[in-house]
């Protein structure tokens, strides 16, 4: 195990822990050959942090994010969300967890094509406990003027910003983003990162981002490096760089 958050020198001002994983393993066994996606991962993520997960394909970062988001269950080890143990949840409790606490952003946006931008957000706010107005969420990502368009009428960057608005409208505790700029050019990618940054700053939402793009790591509080299903190292950025200053 690499750098643990407990080792931070400013431990006395440490914000509350959002996630903690202990000895997390995941083995996929589609046929007879077992694939070890995670080989014992211990990680903590704290409130208000922006954590960027980097590493080559198959290093286990997406698997970890999916487990944190309640989309997948580990083969071994335990996962805590605050004081609750996610690994003890049944299917229905996991659905409820996703519904209340998690905001997802994916590489391919996964918007509902038959709903307008506003309706895609409404879809989630309708089932949330204390949501913001859909318009407010869209304004936060700069999409208010285009909110009555269908996804097919929006550019990729705009669609991804709708996805972010949809993810944050329920005021989730954490925002889990898997390659959010993977399908976008740099200009639109930065606009999307700015939206994530805005949400993190104004709402204090913890954000975990997976990326292949090393440049993005600069906007994180911490960068977690994955290799072969393990955490190969954790780096803390002394200064987070604003998304708009990034380039690639």
């Amino acid at each position: 195990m690499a750098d643990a958050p407990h080792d931070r020198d400013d431990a006395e001002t440490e914000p509350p822990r959002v996630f903690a994983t202990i000895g997390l393993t995941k083995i996929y066994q589609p046929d007879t050959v077992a694939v070890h996606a995670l080989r014992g991962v211990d990680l903590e993520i704290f409130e208000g942090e922006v954590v960027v997960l980097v590493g080559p394909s198959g290093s286990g970062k997406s698997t970890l994010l999916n487990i944190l988001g309640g989309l997948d269950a580990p083969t071994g080890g335990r996962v805590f969300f605050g004081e609750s143990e996610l690994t003890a949840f049944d299917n229905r409790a996991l659905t409820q967890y996703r519904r209340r606490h998690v905001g997802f952003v994916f590489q391919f946006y996964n918007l509902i094509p038959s709903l307008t931008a506003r309706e895609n957000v409404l879809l989630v706010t309708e089932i949330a406990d204390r949501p913001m107005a859909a318009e407010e969420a869209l304004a936060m990502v700069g999409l208010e003027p285009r909110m009555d368009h269908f996804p097919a009428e929006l550019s990729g960057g705009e669609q991804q910003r709708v996805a972010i608005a949809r993810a944050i409208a329920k005021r989730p505790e954490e925002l889990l983003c898997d390659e959010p700029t993977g399908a976008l050019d740099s200009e639109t990618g930065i606009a999307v990162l700015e939206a994530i940054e805005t949400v993190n700053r104004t709402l204090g939402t913890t954000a975990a981002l997976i990326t292949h793009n090393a440049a993005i790591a600069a906007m994180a509080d911490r960068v977690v490096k994955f290799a072969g299903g393990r955490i190969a190292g954790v780096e803390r950025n002394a200064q987070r760089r604003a998304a708009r200053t990034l380039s690639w």
Partner: protein
Amino acid sequence: MAPLDRKLVRDLWRMKGQVVAIALVIAAGVATVVLALGTLHSLQETRDAYYDRYQFANVFAQARRAPEHLARQVAAIPGVAQVETRIVDDIILDIPGLEEPARARILSLPDRVGARLNRVQIRIGRGIDPDHPDEILVHEAFAEAHGLVPGDTITGNINGKARRLRVVGIALSPEFVYVIGPGDLVPDNRRFGLIWMGRGALEAAYDLDGAFNDISLRLTRGAVEAEVIERLDGLLDPFGGVGAYTRHDQISDAFLRSEIEQLNNMARIIPPIFLAVAAFLLNIVVTRLVETEREQIGLFKAFGYSDLAVGWLYLKLVLAIAVLGILLGWAGGAWMGRGMTALYIEYFRFPFLYYLIDPAVFAVAALASLAAAVAGALYAVRRAVRLAPAVAMAPPAPTVYRHTIVERAVPAGMMGPMTRMVWRHIARWPLRSATTIVGVAASVALLVLSLFFIDAIDEMLDAFFFRSQHQDVTVQFADVRQDAVGFEIAHLPGVLAAEQFRAVPARLRHGHLSRRTQISGIEPDAQFSRLFDPNDRPIALPPFGIVLTAKLAERLDAVAGDVLTVEVLEGRRPVRRLPVSLIVQEYVGTAAYMDRSLLNRLMVESAAASGSHITVDPLAQADLMRALKDIPVIQGVTARRAALDTFRSMIDDTMGTMVSFYLLFASLIAVGVVYNSARISLSERGRELASMRVLGFYKGEVIAVLLGEMAILTVLAMPLGCLFGYGLAALLVGLFDSDLYRLPLIVQPSTYGYAVLVIAVAAAATGVAVARRIAGLDLIAVLKTRE
């Protein structure tokens, strides 16, 4: 196996649910064709072979008393091949265990030589010994109903004399394949039977030595029936001939023909519905398949497979599904045909039954199905053929959704995003949504159609047995009797009220059209035989002219006020011109009515009757029946209750089987349509439904989005299906319209309700089966792929 064929087999396996659902719909269509045409063919072949082998006559005539030598003159008529004279009469029998007297028709068989025409086949026992005048043959149906075997004796009232008759054999005859008593609606083998007796014995009993009262003719090929009939009528006229008729008016043959006609109608109406639905299902399934396999199609073409090879691949898939359906349909149709044929054996008495389905029937069913399947899939296959490789490998243009009319009609706050998703998906694929609606509607319609039969028959029974007839028992006199007999009947034990009627056979002519029928003379204020106008309101018998049932009026092209030529075929055979005074509605037969006293005057007879309708004190019914058995002038007794019960039990038998077939078939359509629509919807929307699950929607909520669409389409299909069903019922009423009977076009609300309920349940069950797949959606995979 070529790689493309391997792909075909795997695709079929992967889509097995849809493949089976479509194959079953095709199978239902094929099975109906095989069932209907196969049974029709079997019935026709059997009938033709039977008629031929047992020399069923072509022309029939009755007379009062004609000298035997007349037969030679009849044989000399051009076109007549063979002649057989007989003595025939209607009698009553006293059967132990049967309260009322049974009615029977007694027919003579030539002594010592075999019958030339209408030969009987002795099934059990032996032929009649002319030296024993008490020996009889009994028709198998009647014998079975009463457990009669050779050696038994029964008592019959022959020409006013009680006779003990000894059964020596059980027989069948081509004249009585469908055994139905005069005036009956359905066969009643307990109360009506056929008896054959030696010619000599009957000549003695009826004092018809060297004479006959019934003649049958077999014609040569190419003989003109009308001409033969005219000459025959001319010869019989002086001897009380009542007008010859052909097989067309021979009751057994008419029913057999009507049955064959019905099977023909069934083969024409029902299968096209199934094949159309199957074609539509193949269309949506193959369209979707080509859509999801665009990239593969592009690859095949890039590798050098020709457009035709790719098209052929998808066409083979369609053909494979069709062939599966055809094989299932062949087997199912042959199996059901066997069941149907077994049912026929109960009602149609053949000495043998060919159950051989013409290979052509199988071929026709198969070809029609293949054609429908290919037609259904052609458009989609063509798209695969025309897809340019470069276009195919590029991702498809995103699906563009729009706001729908339904949303505009509903206030903004009333409709949530999930409901909008449902409506927009319906509106996005209007053709598919419309065809899904039509498909489900077809299943509702089919069910309405099958249940409509029960409604129609109930209405028919109600009209016949309850609204128009009010007697408990009808008594027919052996001969025309003066009213005194009627009064005598009225004073029998248990009789509460009696009403006489006079019935004469007659030929009605209007212009060049003519029709043989029976004119019933009834009392002007008749309580027991009431008339109803075409709007089903009771109407009084006019004191003048002749009343026609609507069907008879149609056949004669006559309306009220037209003058008909009425040729009575009995007694002095008067010919009169009479105006049509009224048209009445009846579902059975083509009767005509007159005031009885008017008919008596026409017949130049004083107050005379052919029978009496009576109401009976139920407590004294047994006494009355006993008394009637001993009255020599009585030729027949019909109890309304018994006739109704017989009808009901026949309907329960035949309709029960039919309705359950249709129930199965209609459900197959509903299941096929809903299953395929839901599967395709799931395939198209799997990604967004999985996304919803990721966003924290419960399975039930996601299922609601998937099935909401099916539910809306199904609900929309219901009224349409009821409408279609009514249309099909109307079509069928038109096709069933015959002189024997008509079906009233009445569909009860409960029929619609039941059809809607059954299809709703079938659709819901299918939806739930598809919805279970929501649980299997791979939430992670869907996030990793571009749409």
